[in-house]
């Protein structure tokens, strides 16, 4: 699964602690007031490209190199692999539980297996709750029928059986022929209800539906609030969101002996490959994952998940390449979602705007999965000497959470930025001024420059003049916010520059149109 750190801290690679560092000077900035800053970089680092560097390619606008491919329909996405590309290609479809919580008494797929054109049927004997794709692959049955098992489905949409056939239509027909006897059990899908001690338990092995994380603390918040001239307290809520990438989750798997190739719609081919190697007990050298173009991911396409594992499994069972692609319904139900959050936040500040204390307690649901944490990012954006950040995950009988535009950041940003705006109101201060008093400016970030240029460009100082036009029902307003995302992948260390995610050779971060290809070529120049 997606390797998030606890409380928003980036997972650090062990090698980093031993690297020797050196100090370098760099001239940075966005506009007319560049600064010379001192930064610390690994000793082997090449001279840094700063504002004085004479660059021929980086920093110049270049047309998107895959543009012509995409506008002519030549660009091949995972969903586009057909029997013309892979002779004998089969299509896999998944039978999913219609119930949020039920015991699977029996599955009989013998009629499905007998349907002409069906090449493989796999019954999933033990649930994975979408989450641990490794567990899924250990527990499939061999025959077309399955006797009563201690099998429970714990979310609507959980995989129960998979069919591979010569066409999608035949595969769908086959799903209709699979008889599943369910015994319904009590379920809970509302995260507030799930927090109550008497709520149905989602995971039998867990002692509660509520899983608190380790609080992140600094200083002494009681002291901090005592020192404050102004304190505000708010509760904010954000709902679950769905990524709904234009291209659904899809994987095409092909075995050649013990070598496995998977064309996958994924944001990280390296992680996908590692998951496959682990699930199928293969040498990583025998596994190849290819993503040439991806139709959007937004955080929902990390790791093999179940679509990758099942495509590979069905390809092995059927002895032919298999394409498994979610339809739009599945893309909403089983492809991951962005967790919701209820966030209680208390902010204290001096009359001049300097923050003295920040306390946030948040909880949210990632369905049957983990990591609905949101408060971690709050410690990174503003300087606050006293803080306490607490997150809890709440299990519900629903699809698993996945990161969306950085895990927890959009939710956390909403809370802290709303609170800062309301604090500014209390202080009778310009919200931008309040940010300026408190933000954390890293040497290469030039955040002050960004505030200045941004404010100028949108006419921030004239926002009071946006009042309603006479006779018009429309209202206009202007707002601002600050957020950030630390680089999380240690592979990002192989390039120089601020952008995370790709440069040089060997980048595993798929380009979904954010100029990944162009960025990679620019940085290698």
């Amino acid at each position: 699964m997606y390797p998030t750190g606890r409380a928003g801290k980036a997972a650090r690679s062990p090698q980093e602690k031993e690297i020797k560092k050196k100090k370098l000077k760099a001239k940075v900035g966005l506009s007319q007031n560049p600064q010379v800053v001192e930064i610390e970089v690994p000793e082997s680092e090449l001279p840094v490209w700063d504002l004085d560097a004479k660059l021929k390619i980086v920093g110049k606008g270049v047309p998107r190199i895959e543009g012509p491919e995409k506008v002519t329909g030549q660009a091949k996405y995972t969903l586009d692999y057909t029997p013309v590309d892979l002779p004998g290609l089969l299509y896999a479809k998944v039978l999913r539980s219609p119930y949020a919580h039920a015991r699977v008494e029996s599955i009989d797929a013998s009629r499905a297996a007998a349907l002409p054109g069906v090449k493989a049927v796999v019954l999933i004997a033990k649930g994975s709750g979408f989450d641990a794709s490794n567990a899924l692959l250990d527990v499939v049955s061999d025959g077309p029928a399955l006797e009563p098992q201690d099998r429970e489905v714990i979310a609507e949409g959980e995989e129960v059986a998979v069919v591979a056939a010569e066409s999608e239509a035949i595969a769908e027909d086959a799903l209709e022929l699979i008889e599943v006897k369910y015994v319904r059990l009590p379920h809970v899908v509302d995260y507030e209800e799930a927090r109550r001690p008497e709520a149905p338990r989602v995971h039998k092995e867990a002692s509660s539906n509520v899983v608190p994380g380790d609080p992140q603390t600094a200083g002494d918040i009681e002291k901090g609030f005592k020192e404050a001239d102004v304190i505000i307290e708010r509760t904010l809520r954000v709902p679950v969101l769905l990524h709904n990438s234009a291209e659904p989750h899809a994987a095409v798997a092909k075995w050649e002996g013990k070598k496995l190739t998977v064309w996958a719609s994924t944001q990280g081919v390296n992680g996908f490959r590692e998951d496959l190697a682990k699930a199928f007990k293969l040498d990583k050298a025998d596994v190849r994952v290819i993503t040439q173009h991806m139709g959007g991911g937004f955080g929902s396409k990390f790791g093999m998940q179940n679509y990758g594992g099942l495509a590979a499994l069905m390809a092995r069972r059927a002895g032919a390449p298999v394409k498994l692609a979610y339809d739009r319904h599945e893309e909403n139900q089983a492809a991951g979602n962005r967790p919701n959050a209820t966030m209680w936040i208390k902010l204290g500040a001096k009359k001049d705007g300097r923050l003295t204390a920040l306390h946030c307690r948040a909880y949210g649901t990632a369905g049957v999965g983990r990591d609905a944490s949101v408060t971690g990012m709050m410690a990174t954006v503003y300087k606050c000497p006293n803080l306490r950040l607490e997150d809890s995950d709440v299990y519900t009988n629903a699809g698993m959470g996945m990161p969306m535009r950085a895990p927890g950041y959009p939710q956390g940003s909403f809370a802290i930025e709303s609170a800062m705006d309301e604090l500014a109101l209390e202080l009778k201060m310009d919200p931008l001024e309040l940010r300026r008093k408190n933000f954390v400016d890293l040497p290469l970030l030039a955040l002050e420059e960004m505030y200045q240029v941004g404010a100028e460009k949108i006419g921030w100082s004239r926002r009071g003049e946006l009042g309603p036009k006479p006779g018009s029902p429309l209202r206009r307003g202007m707002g601002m916010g600050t957020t950030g995302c630390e680089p999380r992948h240690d592979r990002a260390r192989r390039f120089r520059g601020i952008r995370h995610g790709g440069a040089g050779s060997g980048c595993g971060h798929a380009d979904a149109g954010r100029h990944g290809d162009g960025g990679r070529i620019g940085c290698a120049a």
Partner: protein
Amino acid sequence: MSKTKNGKQKLSRRKFLKTAGMASGAAAVCLFAKPAPGAKAAAAKHQPLGPGQVEVRLDVNGKVHVLKLEPRVTLVEALRERLNLTGTKRTCDHGECGACTVLLDGRAVCSCMTLAVNAQGKKIITIEGLAQGKLLARLQKAFVEHDALQCGFCTPGMIMSLKALLDQHPRATPAQIRAAIAGNYCRCGALPNILKAASAVARG
């Protein structure tokens, strides 16, 4: 397709199409409604197609292909899986997102909502039919120049919708441009540049 909670089969779009394929397009919509006066006589003129595969002639980008398909196969499935023309995308499969847009006799239609059998006798243009070899059409060039795409999955549908508009209204207004792509979803946020590219072509 799922069963409802009480075990009854829901009427799914697939099942409807399966049954509808047994009759030619026009008569299909009458299957679940009372026949209008004269419908019986009209129905007698139409021969049922299927069950099983039937011969289908599709004129795609100026070339005629003869395929054997079940009548329930949609045009988008035929284009993608049978003719390997995968530029047209199948994203929602129920006529909502526009990624499957193709031109049928100059009109922009959702190919996921069109039966292949009903596309016969019409000129079908897909995204693959726009460029002349390596020479991009004006719309395609404008999309690249104005960076009117990110992941690119909505792009073929966007371009086809805009082509349908600009072929009819070469000097289309911004309002007309917005209306033309109102049925095309972009998840990445390329819309501002899409509008720029389309406006640039409309301005000439």
